[in-house]
């Protein structure tokens, strides 16, 4: 009898608590919406209008393909070749984009590898070094690559090099942090054995640590490559090379059909790189950080 009463009141308390949470969540949400709308000086109807007008825009950029003419030459309206009359330029830029991402991922991974040993609690030889490298990596990771790109376009001039350096820096930050977390979760015993046999710090890292974490590191680097492919498609917006430069141009000049042509190419590239890299991670390296 007594127990039942306690149980009941406990249940009631739980329900009350849940209700309290639900109501406060909704109230918070409403306050947030009202406040945010005020700040950016907009309202729900603007939002709705925007979404409907997006439909207009999309219908404009879609190519006017005609089934009968689909496979005709680039001078005939309604053909794929007409839609993609600029394909050789796109492919060239796409290739540049791909190479920007690949080179930046490689150099970024190598830099991250060296810095990460210093930025992990259990492998850093010196606490001052640990602290300063960590902060530096956090900064590199915290600042979006496009901000670095603006800076390096200013320093190096317009072109892919600015983009490569921007992505490299951001990659170094992200991977450096991820790598050092991998070390912190690694097995310390082989390192201890190397230390006990009189090995120096470098050989502790090379023989004690690297063999156990390498698959994990490569997998993270591949994952980063997927992200960098996306990033390198947009850096052209600020003049840092790649297909983004062309996309920026066609959007701004309202070359509607070219917009869809380029976006479709980007999506296909991104998706196929994702699939390929995912396949390598799962089947060849046998490691998946997803």
């Amino acid at each position, binding site marked *: 009898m007594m127990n039942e009463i306690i149980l009941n009141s406990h249940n009631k308390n739980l329900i009350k608590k849940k209700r309290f949470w639900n109501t406060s969540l909704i109230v918070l949400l409403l306050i947030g919406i009202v406040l945010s709308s005020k700040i950016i000086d907009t309202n729900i109807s603007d939002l709705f209008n925007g979404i409907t007008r997006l439909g207009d825009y999309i219908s404009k950029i879609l190519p006017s393909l005609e089934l009968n003419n689909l496979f005709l030459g680039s001078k005939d309206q309604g053909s794929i070749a007409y839609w993609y009359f600029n394909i050789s330029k796109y492919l060239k830029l796409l290739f540049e984009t791909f190479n920007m991402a690949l080179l930046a991922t490689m150099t970024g991974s190598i830099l991250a590898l060296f810095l990460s040993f210093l930025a992990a609690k259990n492998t850093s030889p010196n606490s001052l070094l640990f602290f300063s490298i960590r902060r530096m990596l956090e900064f590199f990771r915290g600042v979006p690559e496009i901000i670095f790109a603006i800076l390096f376009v200013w320093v190096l001039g317009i072109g892919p090099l600015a983009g490569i350096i921007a992505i490299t820096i951001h990659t170094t930050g992200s991977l450096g942090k991820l790598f050092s977390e991998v070390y912190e979760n690694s097995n310390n*015993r*082989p390192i*201890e*054995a*190397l*230390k*006990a*046999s*009189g*090995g*120096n710090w*470098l*050989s502790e890292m*090379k*023989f*004690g640590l690297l*063999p*156990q974490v*390498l698959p994990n590191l490569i997998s993270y680097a591949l994952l980063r490559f997927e992200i960098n492919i996306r990033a390198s498609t947009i850096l052209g917006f600020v003049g840092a090379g790649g297909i983004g430069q062309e996309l920026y141009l066609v959007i701004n000049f309202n070359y509607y059909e070219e917009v869809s042509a380029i976006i479709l190419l980007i999506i296909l590239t991104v998706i196929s790189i994702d699939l390929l890299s995912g396949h390598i991670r799962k089947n060849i390296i046998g490691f998946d950080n997803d």
Partner: protein
Amino acid sequence: MKPLKIKNLKKKFKDTLAINGVNLEIEEGKITGIIGRSGSGKSTLLRMINRLIEPSEGTIEFNDIIITEIKGKALRKWRSECAMIFQQFNLVDRLDVLTNVLIGSLGRSYSFLNLFGYFSKEEKINALRNLNRFELTEKSLQRAGTLSGGQQQRVAIARALMQKPKILLADEPISSLDPKNSKRVMDDMLKINREDGITIICNLHSLEIAKKYCDRLIGLSEGKVVFDGKPKELTTNISKKLYDLDDE
């Protein structure tokens, strides 16, 4: 050559004294067993000899060198002369057996090329010779992680021999092994002691094995030496005390 001298050694972890004033002289060429229940400070003592753990007080001396004061290169040289094997073998699972053994040479003769995985023919011959002593040559190119526990511990001993050590510290070398593999590992340690004259200091949990293989036994309890003598001098009474069996 002079014995390893431990003088008034203490180690404090936060507020517990793991080692509370140990004085010992360990003579060359013998097998010395350190016994006591877990938490008695055996492992801490061994690790301080190799300087994997820094003592809070006291000194360790060997060959007129004060081990507890050396740094950098000298410390690495000492560690290479004073090899260590572990309860969990501490091999690099993903590397092959041969490389695991070769790693032992790094403290003694390190070259920049080693970092690229290069080892000289001479060291490779050394490594194979050591593996051959423990009948492990045909496993040379297998990943260490694929070996049984007993085999892994013998690889670890081969690795220790690569250091050309004067002393071998063995921290609970057979605690994760079955009786058959335990015997094999202990026999191999006996072999390198008798054939190479390597001094062995060995933490052991099992009294029976300690009595069988060691020339001298040291009993630790709460960080203090409570017994020091020949195995036959260890009476049931003392061992009961050592393992705190009185309370049960």
